[in-house]
């Protein structure tokens, strides 16, 4: 099978429907194919892509100032990334700011529902035929006719002094005898991020869950405007603190692709090393926390011990427990010395030995099985419809992993085992994570074995104004996307990070149905979507 052999079929189908393609190119967003469409054909393209089984990897809008367009008229450029068989296609169209209307992709791809609402709240694009036009990211910090990502909107906002609570958000309610509502959040009982959950329940059973997020909307996309590449990567490292390597890597990759920068082979391997360390640290923490949520403190304490040990090694070797600010455009900041190299090898062997008895208990402990098997089942169909990647998709039978499907160095030289399960329940998500810890440990040793010699950074070339780049990496949580467009003088004009949580949050709403309310924490933890990563 050759690369992109499905693309010609999509183009033929588009032509059959008399869709006007305004040209496609391999350069603008390489290695993805960029297909420019007439705005009127946006919906058709979405429908045909869905019919061909393409996966929607996200959608974003990019308002261009008059000075940035050839004919001096403000337009909003809308782009969507679609993936199939390891290849990426970016659909692109432009609509006038005066009449920013475009067809919605949500009827064909339910997972992009909130991405479209987010794009509307921040840029003013109106998505026709969107089944749910309620606000999403906007609460009451700005008015409904203001759009923060438009160039004329000041970064500091329009000076509202106090922001009231978003009290009148129209939640969907279920009426009926014995049906009651449980509002939870935004300030939760534990040490977690803020968000609101609205349960409709009868007895103990959850009939419906509706999430209301956006509480940690920090304006990341606006804060990125005007930054230099290094500043952007620092910001990217703070989109979601537990995925700092994943987001920083995606941003670096986008910047390097936009400028034609070359990443030294040693730097690529070190980035992968950091990414796998991040994966292991998060999985260890979460496996323990899932067990703790059903009262099995033993696993929690043991996993927390191993995680802490791992984080301390991060601090000792890389200078940061969570690996922040270690990636820079064009490379990484820390190299490994010979003794550190040996230290890591020893660590990997030690962790491998240490997890064995703990995982053996977790994998075969009847009281745990009682609570985790059959709990929070996400069907394969739902996972696919929503576009779930990472361990959530893998536990429901979707073997999507960019490290395997379309590897960038150093993964092209590594055997990547994609751990998939079919049950789709909490237990399956735990098993996938356990297998990923083992696989990453194996990979870490192979990365050290084959660590190329040479530089760890090269300067990033000067970007052309308007240059765009798309970064896509497989973080511990799943596929992490990053879009970057440069403005004048090498400054960032648009940054959009798409965390995998955009697609796993709606999965949580589906998998909780029919479960009992007290099992919500364990279901939530087993998915562990990021609030900050999706609120932006």
């Amino acid at each position, binding site marked *: 099978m050759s690369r992109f052999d499905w693309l010609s079929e999509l183009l033929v189908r588009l032509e059959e429907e008399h869709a006007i393609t305004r040209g496609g190119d391999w350069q603008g967003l390489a290695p993805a194919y960029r297909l420019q469409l007439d705005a009127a054909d946006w919906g058709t393209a979405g429908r045909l892509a869905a019919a061909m089984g393409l996966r929607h990897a996200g959608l974003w809008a990019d308002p261009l100032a008059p000075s940035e367009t050839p004919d001096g008229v403000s337009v909003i450029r809308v782009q969507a990334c679609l993936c199939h068989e390891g290849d990426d296609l970016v659909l692109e169209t432009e609509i006038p700011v005066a009449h920013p209307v475009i067809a919605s992709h949500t009827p064909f791809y339910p997972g992009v529902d909130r991405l479209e609402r987010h794009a509307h709240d921040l840029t003013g694009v109106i998505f026709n035929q969107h089944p749910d036009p309620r606000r999403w990211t906007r609460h009451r910090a700005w008015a409904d006719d203001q759009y923060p990502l438009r160039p004329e909107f000041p970064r500091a906002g329009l000076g509202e002094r106090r922001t009231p609570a978003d009290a009148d958000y129209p939640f969907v309610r279920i009426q009926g005898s014995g049906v009651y509502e449980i509002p939870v959040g935004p300030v939760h*009982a534990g040490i977690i991020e803020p968000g609101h959950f609205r349960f409709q329940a009868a007895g103990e059973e959850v009939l419906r869950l509706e999430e209301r997020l956006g509480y940690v909307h920090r304006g990341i996309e606006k804060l990125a405007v005007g930054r230099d590449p290094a500043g952007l990567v620092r*910001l990217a490292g703070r989109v979601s*603190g537990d995925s700092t390597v994943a987001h920083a890597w995606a941003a670096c990759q986008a910047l390097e692709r936009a400028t034609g920068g070359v990443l030294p082979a040693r730097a690529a391997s070190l980035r992968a090393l950091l990414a796998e360390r991040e994966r292991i640290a998060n999985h260890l923490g979460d496996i323990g926390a899932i067990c703790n949520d059903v009262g099995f403190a*033993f696993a929690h304490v043991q996993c927390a011990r191993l995680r802490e040990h791992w984080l301390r090694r991060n601090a000792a070797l890389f200078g940061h*427990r969570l690996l922040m600010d270690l990636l820079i455009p064009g490379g990484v900041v820390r190299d490994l010395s010979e003794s550190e190299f040996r230290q890591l090898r020893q660590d990997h062997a030690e962790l491998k030995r240490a997890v064995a008895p703990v995982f053996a208990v977790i994998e075969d402990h009847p009281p745990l099985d009682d609570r985790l098997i059959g709990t929070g089942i996400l069907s394969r169909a739902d996972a696919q419809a929503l576009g779930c990647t990472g361990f959530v998709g893998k536990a429901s039978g979707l073997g999507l992993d960019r490290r395997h499907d379309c590897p960038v160095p150093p993964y092209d030289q590594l055997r990547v085992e994609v751990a998939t399960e079919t049950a789709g329940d909490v237990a399956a998500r735990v098993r996938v994570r356990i297998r990923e810890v083992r696989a990453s440990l194996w990979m870490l040793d192979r990365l050290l074995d084959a660590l190329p010699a040479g530089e760890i950074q090269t300067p990033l070339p000067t970007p052309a104004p308007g240059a765009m780049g798309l970064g896509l990496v497989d973080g511990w949580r799943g596929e992490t996307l990053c879009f970057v467009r440069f403005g004048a003088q090498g400054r960032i004009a648009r940054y959009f990070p798409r965390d995998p949580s955009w697609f796993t949050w709606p999965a949580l709403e589906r998998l909780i149905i029919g479960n009992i309310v007290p099992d919500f924490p364990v279901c939530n933890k087993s998915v562990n979507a990021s609030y900050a990563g999706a609120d932006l």
Partner: protein
Amino acid sequence: MLRILRQALRIGVVTEPSPVHDDAELTRLGVELRRQIDARLGGSLAIRHVDVGSCNACELEIHALANPYHDLERFGLHFVASPRHADVLLVTGVVSRHMETALRRTWRATPAPKYVIAAGTCACDGGELGDSYAGHGPVERLIPVDLKIPGCPPAPIDLIKGLLGAFAAR
């Protein structure tokens, strides 16, 4: 059951020496903190954590306070589920406008005397995120802050030191 016991016995208590941090200092800080809490708060300190716009890194490190290496509860500090049970609000993140009212209400719900600790660079001075249409920046712009623990994120040892500072200074 035997496997669990065997593992638990084999690993034993790890709350003692650790390879990287200065353990003597950890113990000294802990003992000092314990003394302060005994003297001023009747033996225990209840902390309510509020995230008002953090990236979750601070939360991960606050979680690490409970792991067997740090075991914060041995010093009489514990995290509570409601601000009404709390002596201290531990606030992380730049104050997002969407969390503004929630933070004010949480602060009002905390009984006096109350201490507010801003943890992490974002909460202390805005950090990388700072002012924007979506955020107010540091926590002290909304509610009075008694102590700042900077760091992006602050390591668990910094949090313990900071908590000690909060009471030693009074």
